[in-house]
Every structure is written in structure tokens, then in C-alpha cells.
């Protein structure tokens, strides 16, 4: 987004390493609509995932370039946002150029995150990095997830910082051995990663189990942590849906898994066949069952939470903020009351446990604020 050019090009984002193109399945805004940063512009579909494209900045939607269901390469311009006073001729010119680019296939390839593997305590830890900013952000996923779940957050934040997303042991492309599966072991893996990458100061972001893990990391190395953003974190409060966790761990088929996954989102339609298939493929990798079962021991004590991270906050020096979806069924939003008053909580409407996928701008904004402070 150039400060000189009054016209903002809304482009097809790169939401995953393998994504090369996407389609707008529905325009939420129309030409002439005024939008604020983060407002939803369109529903976008790629072969892996569907999501809502958010406005990169404020302005008026002056021109819609991409048609519904038109295949647009990543980086291609799909709409133009500009202040109302920008002359129509300039918009026409920009629209023509964008259309020509799309028609001739001259769209520059957008590089996705750079992936890599480091070895920590004999375990391979897989990570993906995007952005080259001075500050560093580390995103840590939750139980059964992986670094790709941050796709709607990593890309926008990469404009302002170097953003890493890692796979915890037992997950994604990291080693599947979780040892005793304790918070300490997982925190050790994260700290090992930071050390190997030579990262001195980091803004930590963790969701669900990842939230408890980054809290443990911040408690162990308070000097390293610039800020702590917890997204629907485990380890705080009394309520937990043990049935969801056990259901996820024990499902042996797509049919068994699909209904369990609907608990993750405010809108059950987010549980696509692709999502369910990808999770089953993950669950069928050697070692994953054992990892998930072991981690259940950390997350649960009978039907109640098995981890209490609230004490750890006493050792954390960095400012703590929390983002929680009001419709969270797995770790209900009431758990936020267990956090100290000093932690700023932002409650997000129309979002469940996967708020970083459902309403990513809420998480992006929260982290961006910490980067600016």
C-alpha cells in the first residue's frame, strides 16, 4: 500500500504456500460502498480453504475488477479502493491496467512464506516465515492444528514485521514425538526454535494450547518477550469442552471427525470436506495418535482443565492481551475472567474458538497495536 498512490489495489492474497489462484465467490460490497480497514469485501475460495477478504485500508470501493467465480492468480488486482475525491479517469486507468494484467497473465508471482526445519532437542521443528520487518512475531497454534492455521494473520502482519509460524511437536511437519507432552516440553521446543533462529526479542502469539505454551515461554524467559497475545488460550479458567478434545483425538474417520469439528467455529459451514480430509490425513501419520493422546493428559484432568497457566503470568513482564470469540464452545469466553485485570481482553462477535481464522482482523489489529507501541 503506497503512501503516494491514492488508489489502493485489493489483491488476491496468498493464503497458503501452495495457493496459486483463487476466486471471488461473492462480493459483499458494491461499487460506491465506504469501507473501513478490516471490513469484509468478498468471499474468496481457493482449492484448500474459503475465507473473507478484508479491506487493507479505508476508502470507497471505486471499482470491482474480478467477476464472480473468475480465476484470479495470487497477486492479481480484484478491486480498487480510493477516497471519493479521486477523479474517475484515474480509476478508469488503474482499472484498465489491472484488467489487462489479468487478461494477459502478467501478474507477478507472489512468494509465499519461506519454510524450513530446525532441530531442537533431537526433534525436527518445522516453521514458515514471512516478512522482513525489524520486529519479530511468533505464532503458535493449538491442539491438532498447525502453522497453516495462521494464514489469514501471517500475511497481513508480514507487512510490518518478520512473522514466524511454527509447528509444535506432534503437529504439522514437526517431529511427532511429544515426550511427556507437558507445557514445559512444548515451551522448550519453542525456546529452542527462537534460540536457533537467533531471535532475541519476540512478540508471542498463541491460540488455545498454543496460548498456554507461549505463556510458559514468557514465564521462563521474560526478557525475550516484547508482548504476549493470547487467542482463546488454554490454561485459564475452569471451563473446557472435554468432549471436543476427546472426540478429536479418537475420531478414526471423516464421518466421525466432521461433527466434532463443527464445535470449533461459530459457523458450522466452515467445516469443509477439505478441512476434514486434511485433518484425517494428519491424524493418520505415524505417531500422531500417540502425540494427541499424550497431550490430552496435559489439557484435561478428567473433564476439567488439566493445566493452570495463570500462576505463570506472575513471572511474565511483557504486556498481556487476549482475543476471545464470544461464540467459543471449546474454551468458553467466561474463562477470560481468570485473567488478571491488567490483561486487555477483546471480545469478538460471530467468532468461535478459531477466531484467528474466523475474524482474523481482530487478531491482526491486536498484534499490530503491540508492534506500534
Amino acid at each position, binding site marked *: 500500500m503506497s503512501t503516494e498512490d491514492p488508489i489502493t489495489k485489493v489483491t488476491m492474497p496468498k493464503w497458503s504456500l501452495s495457493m496459486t489462484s483463487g476466486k471471488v465467490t461473492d462480493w459483499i460490497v458494491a461499487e460506491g460502498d465506504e469501507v473501513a480497514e478490516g471490513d469484509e469485501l468478498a468471499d474468496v475460495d481457493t482449492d484448500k480453504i474459503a475465507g473473507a477478504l478484508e479491506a487493507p485500508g479505508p476508502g470507497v470501493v471505486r471499482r470491482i475488477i474480478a467477476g464472480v467465480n473468475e480465476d484470479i492468480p495470487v497477486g492479481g488486482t480484484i478491486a480498487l479502493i480510493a477516497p471519493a475525491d479521486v477523479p474517475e479517469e484515474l480509476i478508469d486507468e488503474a482499472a484498465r491496467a489491472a484488467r489487462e494484467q489479468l487478461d494477459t497473465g502478467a501478474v507477478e508471482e507472489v512468494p509465499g512464506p519461506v519454510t524450513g*526445519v530446525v532441530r531442537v532437542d533431537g526433534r525436527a521443528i*518445522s516453521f514458515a516465515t514471512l516478512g522482513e520487518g525489524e520486529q519479530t512475531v511468533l505464532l503458535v497454534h493449538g491442539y491438532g492444528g498447525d502453522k497453516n492455521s495462521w494464514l489469514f494473520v501471517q500475511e497481513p502482519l508480514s507487512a510490518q514485521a518478520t512473522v514466524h509460524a511454527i509447528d509444535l511437536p506432534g503437529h504439522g*511437519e514437526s517431529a*511427532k514425538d511429544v515426550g511427556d507432552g507437558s507445557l514445559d516440553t512444548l515451551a522448550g521446543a519453542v525456546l529452542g526454535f527462537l534460540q536457533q533462529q537467533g531471535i532475541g526479542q519476540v512478540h508471542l502469539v498463541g491460540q488455545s494450547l498454543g496460548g498456554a505454551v507461549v505463556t510458559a515461554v514468557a514465564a521462563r524467559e521474560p526478557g525475550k518477550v516484547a508482548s504476549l497475545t493470547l487467542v482463546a488460550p488454554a490454561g485459564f479458567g475452569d471451563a473446557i469442552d472435554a468432549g471436543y478434545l476427546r472426540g478429536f483425538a479418537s475420531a*478414526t*474417520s*471423516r*464421518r466421525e471427525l466432521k461433527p466434532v469439528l463443527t464445535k470449533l467455529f461459530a459457523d458450522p459451514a466452515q467445516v469443509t*470436506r477439505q478441512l476434514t480430509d486434511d485433518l484425517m*490425513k494428519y491424524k*493418520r*501419520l*505415524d*505417531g500422531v495418535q500417540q502425540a494427541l493422546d499424550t497431550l490430552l493428559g496435559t489439557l484435561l484432568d478428567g473433564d476439567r482443565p488439566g493445566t493452570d497457566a495463570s500462576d505463570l503470568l506472575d513471572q511474565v513482564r511483557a504486556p498481556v492481551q487476549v482475543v476471545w470469540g464470544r461464540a467459543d464452545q471449546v474454551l468458553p469466553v467466561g474463562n477470560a475472567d481468570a485473567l488478571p485485570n491488567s490483561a486487555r481482553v477483546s471480545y469478538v462477535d460471530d467468532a468461535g474458538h478459531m477466531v484467528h481464522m474466523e475474524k482474523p482482523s481482530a487478531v491482526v489489529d491486536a498484534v499490530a497495536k503491540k508492534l506500534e507501541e
Partner: protein
Amino acid sequence: MARTISYREAINEALAQEMERDPSVVVMGEDNAGGAGSPGDDDAWGGVLGVTKGLYHKFPGRVLDTPISGSAFIGAAVGAATAGLRPVAELMFIDFMGVCFDQIYNQAAKFRYMFGGKAVTPVVIRTMYGAGLNAAAQHSQCLYPIFTHIPGLKVVLPSSPYEAKGLLIQSIRDDDPVIFCEHKALYDTTGEVPEDSYTIPFGEANVVRDGDDVTIVALGRMVSVAEQAAAGLARQGVEAEIIDPRTTSPLDADTILESVENTGRLVVVDQATPRCGMACDISALVAQEAFGALRAPIEMVTAPHTPVPFAQSLEALYIPDAQKVANAVKKTMDWKK
């Protein structure tokens, strides 16, 4: 890390990883090592189409070249399985089953039953099937329906590299005799396959594509034919649901029935000949269990009731293609009482 590899490499990787993990897994068959003993690293051919290449050197003593006597070495594999090994024997062409069929269907398939549960026969018989490489009548058949018919055997038909690796690992870990059928025209096809070992359960069909208008059940190589047909049909506003059973024994009836309950139309595509085959098997199952849901008669797309031709022009007509599948779908869409 998932990366793009071929169907052939996926099978090779499954064998290598299982042999690494379990010392009782051995590989045997005609030319499975191939030229072994000649000097040099690249000597061993690794099978007639290179599927077992490299294993001979990685696992000395565990990859055996057998004489050209299917009856003898398949029998040996079956016997070895009951005695504690987990052999993966290669019946090079499924067309050769005739010379060793007794060992498979009268011995391997029945040991457990006839010995009152005392015998365990964890043998995997890998075999090539299918037309399309101009290999003519005696090297191109699809005889998996015959194995499917035999209680005591399990029959597996992977349609892609991801399926091939996961299903073969599952087959090797399975304690029953498994006939693992590889379409020879699929060896060079590629797809994303995780580096890690993983399994795919038997008796679980894969829904390859979602759709509300018609259910297409497709086997083996026909899955990609169905996908081509579905792409064309989508442009005409017809959304096909494609189901890949993955295993014909056990067969995932539930997924097929659930789909037909929703779409009301069924087309079964099988590259095998039409009599007593999977197309009839699945059609009868659906006609019996989901009769009320059907909005049109079931359509079957198969090879004709002839041996596989050698003339290229005829072989091209022999194999079901996307146009034939689309025509069958249209018949179900257009049908009126």
C-alpha cells in the same frame, strides 16, 4: 513434509519404510531385485517397471528374486506368512493368477477359517492390472473382482500416489492376506505424498468430489476419468459426487448409500469387464438398500465383454473414458418414467 512424487515412488517408499520398521517384512517376486549380484550400484532392476528399485541394496537378504513359477513362490510366500514372516510377494501381472490361484484362494484365504483361528496369514500380494499400455489380452486384465469374490481375502485398489503409500503400509500391517492391485498406467502419475509413514484404513471410501446431482463410484484408474467427466459436467451445471471405494473387500457400502440417498442417481465406472464385476456388485447393493432414493435407473460404464485388444484403435475404445461417463450421467439426468 508432503511433496510431489509418483505412484511408483510412493509404493517403493511404503515398502522401504515398512521394511525399515519391521524386520519380518520381506519382498519377493520375479525380478524384484532383478540382475542382483552384478557389480555397480544401479545393477538391480527393481522389478519389471522399477517399482522395487533400490530395496535390494537397502535391505540385503530381504529382497528375493524368484524363479518364473508363480505357483511355487506365491505358495512359498503364503507358507512363510503363516510361519511368522510378513512377505510382500509380487504377482507380476494379475493375468498370471491362474498359475497360483489355488495358493491364494484355497490356501491363504482359508487357513484361518479352516484352522479354527489358529493360523495368521499376513501376506501381501502386489499385482499389476489394467489396460492402456498396449500390453494385449494376457497382460492387461482387471481380475480383482475374482479376488473380491473370495471370503478371507482383502482387495485394495489405490487410485493415486497418496492412496498407494497409505494403503500399502496398511496392507503390510494387516494380518490378513491382501491383494494389492496397482494399475500399470498409474505408475507415472504424481501427487502430494507425506514423507512420514501413514495408513489409510480399509473399508473407508474416499469422497473425491462433492456434488448433489449424481453419484459416480469409480475404481482405480477410473477415478481420474470420473474427475475429468465431472469437470465437463460442472460446466453444464451438473455437479457429480465422486466416490473412490479404495478397497473392494471390505467395501464401504455406507458412504456409497449415503451419497445415493442424497443424489438419487448412480453411475458406476469400472475398467473391468462387465459380467460378475464390481459394477454389478455395487449396483445391486444400491438397488437393494437405496431403491426408494433412486430417481433413475443405475448406469454402469465398463469395458466390453471381450479380451483386451492389441490394436491401439481398439484398446482406446475398450477403456471407459470421460465422454462415456458423461453420457451415462446424462442418461440418469434425462430419464423420465
